């Protein structure tokens, strides 16, 4: 279903944009031909493996690699000694990819080997002896904040306080956002509810583990094949860590088997490159699933206090939240974004959100789809739900009453532009799902969510071929069908059929710099760049037509894939198609190409409302999702199938986060469930169909009105499901995941 509220902006008819065209990489992906990270081999290739710390926190006293070095078939061993000085901005990454004085979490890399086969590499790892001095550790966020907690980094002094403390602690920084006076607001309320929530760390859970092949030649030139969300980022980071000129490292992005933010940084890539440098041979590294869970970048666990006041008529008078996120052993959790996003759906007079960035003995967190936002939204939307229930108000009406709209002041500061939150709420209210009957032990919940979206550095190149086809090179890896959407936007602009444009992901030597595929930016930014590159090419095509006709270029217009004389005054000339002009390119001045290098700005924010029905089994505590509907503003859905796919995928990741997924650490600080059997992501039989309603409130910052859609979809589910389960169980849930034991506890059964 597609909802287009009245909007004067951008009424435009499209030929291709908005159609469900076949995807260009489809055949390769259904026949097994597509080459993912681990599918690449190179001549003379070695296999690299990593030795990881079994301790959550330990001093590394000595690493003895002598025995391993003597093993036949071993060609290189690296430790932190092989990573020399680097820029300050890379220090944390350098320490995360290879532990230096201390191992900071269970799974932290301490050494790596390259050998002729995986089995030899495995034997070699066993021969490396590491002397550890085990230190006290802390993995829980609230524990880590206590004054007597073991200090992980004695150079860490809390930032963001009025006075920088004299003693180091695990609290990296304090953030505060908001406006108005919350205390005054609470006095105006008829009801104030205050609650504390907890969420556990979860993992992006991409099915393809990290993988790469690195090849460094004796001439100092290197090549890498990597599954990543950003091969330009991999190039710059690896070059920076190993002191290589950026131009001497060429990185090609493989097909990528999911990322969701987890592949926006490096883990094994610099290690493979260091091994290759030492062995002087190509080195392939592939993480096992256990390594992915123990030592890539999961999201934060959190502990959140929320206080919200409401009048009897549903007006929210004040909102106050304190969010505490642990982001692993290094500063930089997503807490500022959680604090900025949590109240964003509401236009509040008095609002404050405080965020604490905390470190703990866990893997360094990486971005996960709308980083930091789902937990914050979970806490706020839960309290709003409870207020509605207590005051006997309709939760959608209350949200509509308080919803942010065009021009309202966002809780994090600036004023919003054109936004679509109310449209998603209206769509939800009018959907049959909202009125459907519920049975025994069943409940319904709704929640809203917000994500910023952004653009970023983008470079695109478009070549017009002699036969009238077009080659489009972009630098942003295609995770979910973006080649189709970007190619379609170029075809739309050029006025040629979509299958005449072939969109490829170019390597780092072939294009200018591109930021990583993240922040829901690709369809927005690469699409915008593709449109501009197409316009650049159209300008040149018109010049050629002008030359052929012998008229000034401003007397030529481009319409539906053809150059035409602008008016009768320009003379009578048969229109020239793109193919006609391309065929004469050589004779009229050489190849025709369009380029675009931009820092794309103007990514419109995106809001969503989710609605979910669940059933709770009071005997076992098991929660079943019965029905799920996503209402989200996409601005303009370039390829509706992939927009729906993003909505559905985000909702289901949210279901996993809400119901099953969690990092479980034992007392000794080791991860207890590093496998898909125990870290259980939703499977097919857990789920119903996921209905989607695409709302289109065009983004004025994009030529076609596009907004990023990839991230917002994971923001509302935690809250929507928790509200639904609370409705079904008749008790307020305040802890994720709502796994059977946690539900039984909440029901007072155990």
């Amino acid at each position: 279903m597609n909802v287009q509220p009245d909007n004067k902006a951008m009424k435009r008819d499209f030929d291709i944009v908005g159609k469900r065209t076949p995807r260009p990489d489809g055949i390769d992906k259904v026949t097994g031909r597509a080459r993912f990270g681990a599918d690449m081999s190179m001549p003379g290739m070695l296999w690299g493996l990593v030795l990881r710390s079994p301790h959550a926190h330990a001093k590394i006293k000595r690493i003895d690699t002598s025995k391993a070095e003597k093993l036949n078939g071993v060609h290189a061993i690296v430790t932190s000694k092989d990573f020399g000085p680097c820029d300050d901005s890379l220090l944390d990454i350098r320490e995360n990819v290879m532990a230096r004085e201390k191992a900071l979490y269970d799974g932290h890399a301490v050494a790596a080997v390259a050998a002729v086969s995986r089995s030899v590499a495995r034997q070699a790892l066993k021969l490396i002896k590491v002397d550890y001095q085990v230190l006290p550790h802390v993995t829980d966020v609230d524990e880590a904040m206590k004054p007597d907690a073991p200090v992980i980094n004695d150079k860490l002094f809390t930032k963001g306080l009025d006075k920088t403390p004299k003693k180091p602690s695990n609290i990296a920084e304090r953030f505060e956002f908001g406006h108005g006076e919350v205390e005054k607001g609470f006095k105006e309320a008829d009801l104030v509810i205050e609650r504390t929530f907890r969420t556990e760390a979860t993992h992006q859970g991409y099915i393809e583990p990290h993988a790469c092949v690195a090849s460094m030649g004796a001439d100092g030139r290197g090549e890498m094949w990597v599954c990543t969300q950003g091969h330009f980022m991999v190039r710059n980071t690896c070059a920076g860590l190993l002191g290589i000129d950026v131009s001497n490292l060429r990185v090609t992005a493989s097909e990528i088997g999911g990322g969701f933010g987890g592949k926006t940084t490096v883990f094994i890539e610099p290690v493979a490159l260091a091994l290759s440098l030492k062995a002087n041979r190509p080195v392939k590294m592939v993480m096992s699933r256990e390594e992915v869970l123990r030592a890539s970048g999961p999201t934060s666990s959190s502990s959140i206090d929320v206080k919200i006041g409401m009048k009897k008529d549903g007006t929210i008078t004040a909102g106050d939240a304190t969010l505490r996120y642990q982001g692993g052993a290094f500063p930089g959790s997503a807490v500022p974004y959680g604090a900025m996003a949590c109240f964003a759906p509401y236009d509040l007079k008095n609002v404050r959100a405080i965020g604490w960035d905390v470190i703990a003995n866990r893997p360094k967190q990486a971005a996960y789809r709308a980083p930091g936002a789902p937990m914050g939204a979970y806490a706020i939307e839960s309290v709003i739900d409870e207020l509605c229930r207590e005051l006997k108000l309709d939760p959608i009406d209350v949200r509509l009453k308080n919803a942010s709209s065009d021009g309202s002041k966002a809780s994090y500061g600036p004023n919003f532009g054109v936004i679509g939150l109310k449209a998603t709420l209206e769509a939800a209210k009018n959907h049959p799902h909202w009125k459907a009957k519920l049975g025994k032990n069943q409940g319904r919940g709704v929640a809203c969510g917000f994500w910023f979206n952004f653009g970023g550095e983008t470079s695109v190149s478009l070549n017009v071929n002699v036969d009238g086809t077009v080659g489009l090179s972009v630098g942003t890896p295609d995770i979910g069908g973006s080649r189709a959407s970007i190619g379609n936007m170029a075809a739309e602009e050029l006025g040629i059929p979509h299958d005449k444009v072939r969109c490829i992901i170019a390597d780092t030597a072939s294009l200018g710099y591109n930021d990583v595929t993240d922040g829901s930016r690709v369809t927005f930014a690469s699409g915008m760049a593709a449109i501009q590159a197409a316009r650049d090419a159209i300008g040149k095509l018109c010049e050629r037509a002008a030359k052929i006709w012998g008229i000034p270029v401003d007397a030529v217009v481009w319409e539906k894939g053809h150059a035409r004389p602008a008016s009768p005054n320009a003379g009578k000339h048969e229109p020239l198609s793109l193919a006609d002009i391309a065929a004469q390119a050589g004779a009229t001045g050489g190849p025709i190409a369009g380029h675009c290098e931009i820092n794309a700005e103007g990514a419109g924010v995106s809001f969503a409302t989710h609605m979910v029905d669940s059933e709770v089994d009071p005997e076992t505590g098991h929660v079943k999702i019965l029905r799920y509907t996503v209402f989200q503003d996409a601005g303009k859905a370039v390829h509706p199938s992939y927009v729906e796919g993003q909505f559905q995928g985000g909702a289901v990741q949210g279901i996993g986060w809400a119901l099953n997924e969690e990092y479980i650490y034992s007392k000794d600080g080791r991860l207890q469930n590093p496998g898909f059997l125990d870290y259980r992501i939703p499977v097919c039989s857990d789920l119903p169909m996921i209905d989607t309603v695409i709302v289109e409130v065009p983004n004025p910052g994009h030529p076609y009105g596009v907004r990023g859609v990839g991230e917002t979809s994971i923001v509302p589910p935690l809250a929507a499901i928790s509200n639904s389960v609370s409705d079904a169980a008749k008790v307020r849930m305040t802890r994720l995941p709502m796994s059977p034991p946690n539900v039984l506890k909440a029901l007072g059964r155990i």
Partner: protein
Amino acid sequence: MVRVQVWGSLKPAIGGDDSVEVEGETINDLLKALSEQYPGMAEAVRRGVSVTVNGEMYANAVMVPVKPDDEVFILPKLVGG
């Protein structure tokens, strides 16, 4: 002069208020002026900030022009997934 607003935890860095007026014609000018006048701001700018101008988010573009009555907001540097 352009009024620049900062996120809550930066208030102490600019003397306790949530906004301050500085001279400048681009985001770059404003950030430079702030860094020169307030050491706390210099530190924040060095670590990276995002700036919104009339609600439009600029993650790292600094040559964006600003006018005296624009609404300018400084926020922590954004990342995505």
